């Protein structure tokens, strides 16, 4: 049994599906079908109300506005009775981009990062392409440098820098143990990956430098890499999904476990992260 409530912080840039995962997680907890169960009712689920309503109507939720930061307390427990207070934050992904641009960590973020025992970093592989370079797509006749062109940082370098910032921030003042890490590869359905492909293999193929950084800085017990499709299919405002309307959003979506197996239990990443935190 944990003495203090377990705190988990969720990070991810814009459009990785943080709000949809949060809303679907609440649906699963209410349906009592997964590894985690609610301990009573959550005090306030207002932050996810809009997304929950949209999903019930078979359409995607609205983008979280840039200034938003709310935390929803989800009192849950694991199958063996370990009580966890899950602080599920909801904020716009632009705040993460802002951190990288400004290289300053606002005091509010500092507190959240310091308090967390475990981090979930949501990454949408289709939105962070590796791209080609002189090695993957050779060019026999290299020219002199392009003048005046801006050089864009590669997406995986930005993700590594984000983790480096978080590691520094979490420990700069406290010196406490580095939080356990869950990398959640979101919108897995977009990848059209064959069944059995493991999330670790997708991470290594799509973001090899990030994969190396994670495996060299978190021990095997303290890191997990999973896939997620919070809604199972792409939703469109123009054509509401009938399955969401008739079967219910709580029956949609799945997680890809470390061995590549699909599971409808969207609480699985949290349950596994809880184990990693306690290892």
């Amino acid at each position, binding site marked *: 049994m944990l003495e203090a409530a377990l705190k988990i912080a969720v990070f991810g840039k814009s459009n990785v599906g943080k709000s949809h995962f949060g809303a679907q997680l609440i649906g699963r907890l209410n349906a009592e079908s997964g590894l985690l169960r609610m301990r009573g009712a959550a005090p306030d689920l207002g932050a996810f109300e809009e997304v929950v309503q949209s999903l019930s109507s078979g359409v995607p939720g609205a983008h979280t506005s840039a200034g938003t930061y709310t935390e929803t307390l989800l009192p849950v427990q694991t199958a063996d009775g370990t009580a966890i207070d899950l602080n599920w934050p909801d904020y716009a992904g632009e705040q993460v981009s802002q951190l990288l641009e400004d290289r300053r*960590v606002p005091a509010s973020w500092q507190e959240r990062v310091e308090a967390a025992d475990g981090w979930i970093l949501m990454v949408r592989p289709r939105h962070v392409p590796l791209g080609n370079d002189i*090695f993957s797509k050779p*060019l026999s006749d290299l020219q002199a440098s392009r003048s005046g062109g801006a050089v864009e*940082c*590669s997406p995986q*370098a930005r993700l590594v820098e984000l983790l480096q910032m978080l590691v520094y921030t979490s420990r700069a003042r406290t010196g406490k143990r580095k939080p356990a890490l869950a990398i959640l590869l979101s919108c897995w359905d977009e990848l059209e990956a064959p069944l059995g492909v493991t999330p670790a293999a997708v991470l290594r193929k799509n973001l090899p*430098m990030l994969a*190396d950084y994670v495996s060299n800085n978190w021990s095997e017990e303290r890191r997990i890499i999973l896939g997620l499709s919070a809604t199972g299919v792409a939703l469109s405002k123009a054509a509401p999904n009938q399955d969401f309307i008739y079967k219910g959003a709580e029956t949609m979506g799945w997680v890809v476990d470390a061995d590549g197996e699909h599971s409808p239990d969207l609480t699985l990443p949290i349950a596994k992260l809880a184990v990693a935190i306690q290892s």
Partner: protein
Amino acid sequence: MQQCKYWQSSREVLEKAAVAEIDDSARLPWTGNAMGAGDIGFLGGASRTRLVGVFGVAESGKTSLLGAWYLLLGRGIGPKGISFAGSLTLEGWENIAGNLRWNATHGPSFPPHTSSGAGRHPGLLHLDLQVDGGRHDLLFADAPGEWFSRWSVRRDAEDAAGAAWLSGAADVLLVIADSKELAGERLGTARANLLSLLRRVGAERHGRPVALVWTKCDVAVGEQMRSAVKHAADLALGTYETFSVSMHAAPGQEPYNCGQGLLELLDWLVRVGDVTFPKTVLPNPEQDLLRIVGGVHA
């Protein structure tokens, strides 16, 4: 996609700085860009940090060599047992490697010429590498070639202070032989310049590991010239290693390639003289990294 901060206009940076002054946010102790003299106070204290000096005249491929290593590590390609574990200068690496990538409108091109400016220290690019069971911090000096041309001729020249600093501080020295120049129209001048650089490095190395690195090795250099350079290196350096590198694949190599000789050279410079590095496995390697940037109670 946001642009690197490095490329923001100075006005944008100033405006953001002005706003930041009044809030209670915490500034991170590293900028992501190449480090300067003010950032390297830890060099003497961090026993596992290794400074790699790349000595070569302008346009000889020093920056491209660094960019190539970064791109390979970014693809998860490294020497056996060596992989990326972090960097305090990711933006700096991206700025030199970005030119070697394809983008929406361009194919790869050479990185821009490293400006000599008025600096007295080279820009330093940091890599934290996992090497078998331990960790190595490496700093790579990305210095303008003009410094080395001046330094070859006059060790204490005012405008060669950066080269002199690097020759004193580097743990591993790479001397660049530019295959293209040594096979080109001005090969006589290129040979003379390389020989004087070799002599200078030979006089200043003080027992440190040195490698002679033939860059752009896809360009064939005449046997007579190759022998002349080798003879000069034998005389000036005595003991040294020789590597031939190129970003272009060797004939018959798969299109998805790792160039030629790049991984072998990286492996050598990481492992050479390894006795100076701690052999024990670090339980929390990032603590050392954080100690480097300061202010951390590890």
